[in-house]
C-alpha cells in the first residue's frame, strides 16, 4: 500500500511536470498579450518597459524556468490584469465554483442512483421508462440552452428564482458560502441543477445498467434463496457490486464539473473560477490561465487517487500492491 502510494505520487509529479510544459507552450501559441494589455497609443519606449515589467522580453525557455522556480515556491505568477498573485485570484473564486460543483454532484447521486435503481428493478414501469427517456435529454441537450430555458421559465415567466449572482452569503471557516443562506440557496438552485443534469443522466443510466446486469446473476438468486428481504438483496448485495463504476464516473465527473462549469457560470453570471478563466482567456492573462490549468490537473490527480482508494474499500479483489 505504501509502495503503491509512493509510486503514484511520483507518477503524479511527472504528470504535473509534463503539464507545465504543455500549458506553458500552449498559452504562448494562442496570442500575444502585449497587443491587448498595452494601450495602442503607447510609444516604443513605454512598450519596451511594459514588456520587461511583464517578463516577456526573455526567451521562452528562460520564462519557463522562472515559472518553474516560482512554482516550487508556491508562486504561479502574477495576473497581468489585476496585478495580484494568480493563485490568490483563483482562491477567491474557488469557493463559489466548489459549492456549485459539490451541489451538482450531490444532486446527481441523490437523484441519479435511486432513479437508476428503480428503472433497473422495474424497467417496464412508467417511471422507469420516463427516467430513461428523460436521461437522453439530460446529456444531449446543450447546457447553455437548458440554462437559458431555466431562466426563461423560472426567473422571467414564473419569477420563482433569481437568475444571476450568488445572492446573500455567510461566512464559514473564513470563506463566504451561498449555501448557508436561504437567498443563496435560491440563487444556487438553477445553476446547480443545470450543471448536474448531464451527470444525473449518466449516473442514472449507469446504475440502471448495473442493476440489469447483476439481477440475473447467480449470487442474487442465491441471496433470495437464503430468504433475505428484497431490500437487503438490492441495497446490500446488488448495490455493493454496481458501486465501482458509479464511483469512478462520479469521481471523474466531479473533476470535469469543476473544470467545465464555465458555461453554466457564464449563463447565470455566477462569480466562480469558470467566469474568471473565460475573462482571462479573453485578455490573454497568461499567469491566470496557467495557474488555473495547473490547479485543474492537480485536482484530477487527487480525485483519481481517492477513487482508487475507494475501490479497495468497495471490492476486496482489488489490491493496490504491485505484484512482483
Amino acid at each position, binding site marked *: 500500500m505504501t509502495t503503491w502510494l509512493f509510486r503514484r505520487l511520483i507518477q503524479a509529479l511527472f504528470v504535473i511536470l509534463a503539464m507545465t510544459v504543455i500549458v506553458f507552450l500552449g498559452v504562448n501559441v494562442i496570442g500575444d498579450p502585449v497587443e491587448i494589455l498595452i494601450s495602442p497609443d503607447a510609444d516604443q519606449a513605454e512598450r519596451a518597459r511594459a514588456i520587461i515589467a511583464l517578463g516577456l522580453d526573455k526567451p521562452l525557455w528562460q520564462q519557463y524556468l522562472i515559472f518553474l522556480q516560482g512554482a516550487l515556491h508556491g508562486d504561479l505568477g502574477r495576473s497581468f490584469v489585476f496585478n495580484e498573485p494568480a493563485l490568490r485570484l483563483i482562491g477567491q473564486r474557488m469557493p463559489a465554483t466548489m459549492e456549485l460543483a459539490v451541489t451538482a454532484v450531490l444532486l446527481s447521486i441523490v437523484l441519479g442512483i435511486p432513479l437508476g435503481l428503480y428503472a433497473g428493478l422495474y424497467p417496464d414501469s412508467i417511471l422507469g421508462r420516463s427516467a430513461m427517456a428523460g436521461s437522453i435529454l439530460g446529456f444531449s441537450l446543450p447546457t447553455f440552452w437548458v440554462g437559458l430555458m431555466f431562466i426563461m421559465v423560472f426567473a422571467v415567466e414564473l419569477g420563482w428564482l433569481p437568475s444571476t449572482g450568488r445572492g446573500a452569503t455567510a461566512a464559514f471557516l473564513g470563506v463566504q458560502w451561498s449555501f448557508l443562506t436561504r437567498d443563496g440557496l435560491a440563487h444556487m438552485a438553477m445553476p446547480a441543477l443545470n450543471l448536474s443534469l448531464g451527470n444525473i443522466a449518466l449516473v442514472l443510466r449507469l446504475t440502471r445498467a448495473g442493476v440489469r446486469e447483476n439481477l440475473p446473476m447467480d449470487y442474487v438468486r442465491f441471496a433470495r434463496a437464503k430468504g*433475505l428481504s428484497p431490500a437487503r438483496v438490492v441495497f446490500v*448485495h446488488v448495490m455493493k457490486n454496481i458501486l465501482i463504476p458509479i464511483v469512478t464516473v462520479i469521481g471523474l465527473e466531479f473533476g470535469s464539473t469543476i473544470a467545465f462549469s464555465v458555461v453554466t457560470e457564464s449563463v447565470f453570471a455566477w462569480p466562480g473560477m469558470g467566469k474568471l478563466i473565460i475573462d482571462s482567456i479573453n485578455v490573454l492573462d497568461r499567469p491566470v490561465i496557467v495557474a488555473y490549468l495547473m490547479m485543474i490537473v492537480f485536482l484530477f490527480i487527487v480525485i483519481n487517487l481517492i477513487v482508487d482508494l475507494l475501490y479497495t474499500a468497495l471490492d476486496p479483489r482489488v489490491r493496490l500492491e504491485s505484484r512482483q
Partner: protein
Amino acid sequence: MSDMTLEVRNLRTHFFTRAGVVRAVEDVSFSVQRGRVLGLVGESGSGKTVTGFSIIRLVDPPGRIAGGSILFHGRDLAKLSEREMRGLRGNRIAMIFQDPMMTLNPVLRIDTQMIETVRAHAKVSHAEARARSRDALGMVGIPSPDERLESYPHQFSGGMRQRVAIAIALLHRPDLIIADEPTTALDVTIQAQILAEVQKLAANVGTALIWITHDLSVVAGLADEIAVMYAGRIVEAGDVATVLDRPSHPYTHGLIGSVPSRNKRGTRLRQIPGMTPSLLDLPEGCAFRARCAYADAACEKDPPTTEPARGHALRCFHPLLEPVA
C-alpha cells in the same frame, strides 16, 4: 407429522415469452420422504432446474407456476404469499446452485453472507449468529473456520466455495435441500468428497434432498429414487434399482447406454440420435417419439402415466419389457 416432506402434484411451470408459451415443466408429479434422496435426471433444457426453482418459488418472469400444487408438509407452496415463502427459503427449504464461483457474492465477506442468513430467520445476537456460522463451516469440513469467516469468496477454491454454499444451506437444518448440479463444476476428487459429505449430513439431520443432475453415475451412488425428465415431463420414475437396472422407457435406456463404464471398455458408446426438441410449441404426443426406435402411430397421442409396478411410474406406450442393461 407424516414422513412425506414434499409432494409435487401435476406441477406446470410455463414461460410466457413473446415467441409463445414455453412449457418448461408440464404435469410433473413426484414426492420425497424425510431423509431420502431423489435424483432428478435429464439433459440440459429438460426442465429439471426449473422444477427446482419452482419448488422454492424463484422462477423469474416471464416464467410462472401455471398450475398444480407443491405440498411441503401438507402446505401448498404455490399458494403461499411471497412473505410466507420468504420465511421458508433458506430456513426450511434451502438450495445449492450449480456454479460455486458465481453463487457467493464476490464483494461481501463470508461471515456477512452467513450471518445475514442466520438472522433472516432466527432472532439471535450477532455473536450467536457468528458462532452458528462457524459451526456450520466446521461441519462441512472447512479447516480453521474462525479465520475463514473473515475471508472473501475469491480467497477460496471452487470446492471450498461449494462447501461454504452447502454450509449456508445447512445453517437452519432445513427439511428439504434442492441441489442443482452442485458438483458439476468441480473436479472428480472434490465431487466425491462433497457427495459423501452431503449424504452423511442428509442422513444425520433427516433432510430430504432433491439432487438435480445430468450425471447418472452421480445419482446411482447417491439417490434412493430417480425421476427422469424429458422435455418438461417425468418420463420414468422409481427407486434406483428399478430405473437404472431395468429401465422401461426407451429414453432412460438410451441415457444409461450413453454413460461410459468399465464393462463397456473398448466399445463405442451408444448415443441417442437427434436433439432435445424445442419446448416452444411442442407438438401433441410423446416428445421423445422423433428420436425413439419404438415409436409408431400410437405415440402421436400423449402417453398417460402408468404404474407397471408399485412405486414405478412410466409414460410410454411401448415400455421395454426385457431387462436390457
